[in-house]
């Protein structure tokens, strides 16, 4: 019986396997797949997701910032520039996504962590690489093939795996909502979106290479990509949560972009011997400066203070924006509430108000600390003022 079962399973699996997975050939300009294909289906769902993103309350509507990111993206997208539409989302995680219809999201957590235009251009080139090579279609085919393999091994495994695959990139919350509403929520949407997110390691490395080449071709420094990934790995090591620290920079903050030493080494190898290029650090910082405060405030909502401190220290390295940065360092300390944190927070607020860009709440927080401080330190505070 068992053998018969495997036989039937195999027959079905072969029937469902794709005819021939397309190799990594660049997509044609102005591509629009036939509506009656799996690819057409992915596009239609991407169009729907884009409609929602377009009017999302999380969208950053600053014309200057949008124009800047679009300009940098076009610098690495080349002929594909008119096909790509960028949506800047105020979400405190390092992430960018690329859908096959040209709809791209760049999250504020990424903008906050890139140090210069060269790094931004590398990461945009990486995403556009997924687009040029049609990785989302490949990912869906690969998923199907993986599942087919699982099916042949065992029926029960395949059933469990199928459920997991459809749900995997969505949070537990999404799954529980799906259960609660008996599947009427956008299962199709989640299923389709999941396939964009689950790019394979090969696809990611491939996209790294494309991001690297397009950024270098545009005149940026060849070491930018590796430097960006290194910063992220360092930040991950500083996490308050052991689980995050232990992960090989996978999941959590960098959900969609598994990082490994291999990928960083591959970028180092590519960069070796290349002529240094431009970083455009000042221009980049000047562009994100008006948003720095709001993005840091969002970052604190993640409640991973170890990472926030690391990030703030890194942003301080150039001696710029010290009023804003010290204020949010103080905020992180105040919210963490470990022994001695309040005293340290006061020092940070005091450091902040020494700079012209200190936000008004820095004085408010100093006043609040003084108000609730034990009596004996009141005199010290008076001396300070």
């Amino acid at each position, binding site marked *: 019986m068992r053998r018969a079962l495997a036989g039937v399973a195999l027959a*079905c699996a072969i029937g469902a396997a794709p005819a021939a997975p397309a190799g990594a050939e660049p997509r044609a300009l102005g591509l629009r797949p036939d509506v009656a294909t799996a690819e057409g289906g992915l596009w239609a769902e991407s169009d729907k997701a884009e409609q929602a993103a377009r009017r999302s309350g999380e969208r950053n509507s600053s014309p200057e910032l949008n124009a800047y990111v679009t300009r940098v993206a076009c610098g690495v997208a080349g002929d594909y520039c008119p096909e790509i539409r960028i949506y800047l989302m105020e979400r405190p995680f390092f992430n960018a996504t690329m859908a096959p219809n040209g709809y791209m999201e760049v999250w504020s957590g990424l903008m906050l962590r890139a140090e210069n235009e060269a790094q931004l251009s590398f990461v945009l080139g990486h995403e556009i690489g997924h687009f040029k090579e049609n990785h989302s279609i490949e990912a869906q085919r690969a998923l199907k093939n993986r599942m087919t393999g699982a099916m042949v091994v065992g029926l029960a495994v395949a059933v469990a795996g199928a459920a997991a695959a459809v749900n995997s990139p969505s949070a537990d919350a999404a799954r529980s909502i799906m259960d*609660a509403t008996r599947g009427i929520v956008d299962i199709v949407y989640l*299923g389709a979106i999941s396939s964009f997110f689950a790019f394979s390691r090969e696809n990611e490395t491939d996209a790294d290479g494309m991001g690297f080449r397009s950024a270098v071709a545009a005149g940026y420094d060849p070491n930018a990509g590796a430097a960006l990934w290194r910063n992220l790995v360092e930040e991950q090591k500083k996490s308050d949560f052991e689980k995050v620290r232990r992960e090989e920079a996978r999941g959590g903050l960098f959900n969609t972009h598994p990082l490994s030493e291999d990928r960083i080494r591959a970028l180092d190898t590519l960069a070796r011997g290349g002529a240094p290029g431009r970083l455009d650090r000042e221009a980049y910082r000047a562009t994100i400066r008006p948003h720095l405060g709001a993005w840091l405030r969002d970052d604190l909502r993640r409640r991973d203070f170890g990472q926030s401190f690391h990030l703030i220290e890194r942003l301080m390295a150039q001696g710029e924006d010290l009023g804003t940065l010290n204020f949010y360092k103080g905020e992180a300390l105040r919210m963490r509430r470990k022994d001695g944190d309040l005293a340290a927070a006061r020092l940070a607020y005091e450091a902040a108000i020494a700079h012209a860009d200190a936000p008004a709440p820095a004085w408010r927080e100093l006043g609040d600390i003084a108000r609730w401080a034990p009596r004996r330190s009141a005199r010290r505070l008076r001396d300070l003022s």
Partner: protein
Amino acid sequence: MKRLILAIALLCAAGCATANTRLASEDLPRPPAGSRILIVQPDVSLALLTAVGVQEARADWSQQGRDNIAAQLTTAMAAKNHAAEAFNPTDAVDGRVGQVLRLHKAVGESILFASYGPIPLPTKKKNFQWTLGEGAQELSRAAGDANYALFTFARGTYSSSGRAAMAVVGALAGVAIPTGQQQVFASLVDLRTGQVLWSNVVIASPNSDMREGAGAEALVKLLLKDAPL
């Protein structure tokens, strides 16, 4: 014997296609004949459920389902002597009308969660009081002073032949393999007050395939069975 099979088939048909009507109030005044009812373009996403359980969105099916349901809703409104008008939301994503549409989406999701979910909110167990507020009048104004708006939302999958075969094999082996299923949610909103008067969730049976005209007709009939129209 033949009669027995027929009886079982009928039972199955009744059991397979299910409806879950909720009404704001039992003694709801029905819209007078000749009411102008806005048929908001159905939001339909359908996918192929492959043998191994991966879903492939199918835009062509979604379009067919959308057009068939819209056509059947229009026919059904005409049969009740109401004036149906189609409304394409993609023309109105901006401004106040877009906000009303997104508000309906949020309220609709809450209805699904709180009135149909396994753990209904205690305050929503017996009463079905949901409203978009008087801002819904914006939609009425934008659409030629319509009186009511009828929203539909469908999601689902259809099994590939391989998947169906797997389900049979699985059943023989004692493993339940989910096959394709389609669900439709509909709601009727009074555009003067914004109140959601009625909603229904239908799980399609095999003979109400919305990709085909006859199937969509059966599905819409079930969907509107207890609608206060």
